[in-house]
């Protein structure tokens, strides 16, 4: 009987209703921060994708002025988003792996697009438009992937 009495709920033991409320509170807290962390990363990646399309089209179709302007816009945009990202107050979980994968794929596609296109396809919309869209795919794909499961445990 002692064991049973010791094991009985006490005044500090949450009732089932209180336990359920605490679980709900925890789930909402986790979802809120995870959502904020995911949203700004998604915005960054989609902006990066849009800028990629613009720069590739500018470089491929704009002649020498396009190459010059594209070369200026790229680093300017990169610097701006780096500062913006550094100011964000929540770092999403699993960001590093996905982000790194997207950046590596993007860099390979971007480099290949320019190396293959600039010598032989300058001004050819049939090459540069699909190339620009394909180059943006890694950023869009990672941005639209479901976020890391926002479970508390």
């Amino acid at each position, binding site marked *: 009987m002692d064991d049973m009495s010791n094991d009985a709920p006490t005044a500090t033991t949450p009732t089932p209703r209180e336990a359920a409320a605490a*679980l709900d509170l925890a789930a909402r807290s986790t979802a809120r*921060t995870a959502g904020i962390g995911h949203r700004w990363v998604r915005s960054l990646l989609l902006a990066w994708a849009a800028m990629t399309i613009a720069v590739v089209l500018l470089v491929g179709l704009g002649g020498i002025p396009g190459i010059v302007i594209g070369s200026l816009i790229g680093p300017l945009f990169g610097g701006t988003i780096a500062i913006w990202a550094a100011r964000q107050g929540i770092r999403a979980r699993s960001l590093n792996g996905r982000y790194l994968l997207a950046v590596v794929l993007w860099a390979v596609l971007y480099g290949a697009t320019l190396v293959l296109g600039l010598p032989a396809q300058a001004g050819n919309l049939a090459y540069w438009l699909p190339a620009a869209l394909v180059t943006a795919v890694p950023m869009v794909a990672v941005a639209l992937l479901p976020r890391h499961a926002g479970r*508390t445990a």
Partner: protein
Amino acid sequence: MTASHPRHRLDDVIHSPVRLSVVAALAGVEKADFKSLRDAIEVSDSALSKQLTVLEDAGYVEITKDRVGRRPRTWAALTPSGRTALTGHLQALRAIAEQQLPPRVADV
């Protein structure tokens, strides 16, 4: 004394609603700065500061500092032991919530 009742697995440190909110909020991210965490769980600066100190003393949260330009920024991140404690606490809460709930009307 037996430890069969799930209340024995509740964690005293994170039993407080604010501290539970803090560790749960941090469980969903790699880290969060003080302002974002305060806004997410809707507490005052002083309340969050106090609870973060308790959690840091318990080894559940790691506090680091850096700067954005000239402005100092405080980051909080859940430690592995904090994550383990949260997992155990939530499991205990689930057990209490599920095992002791009265049967639904449809089940009677």
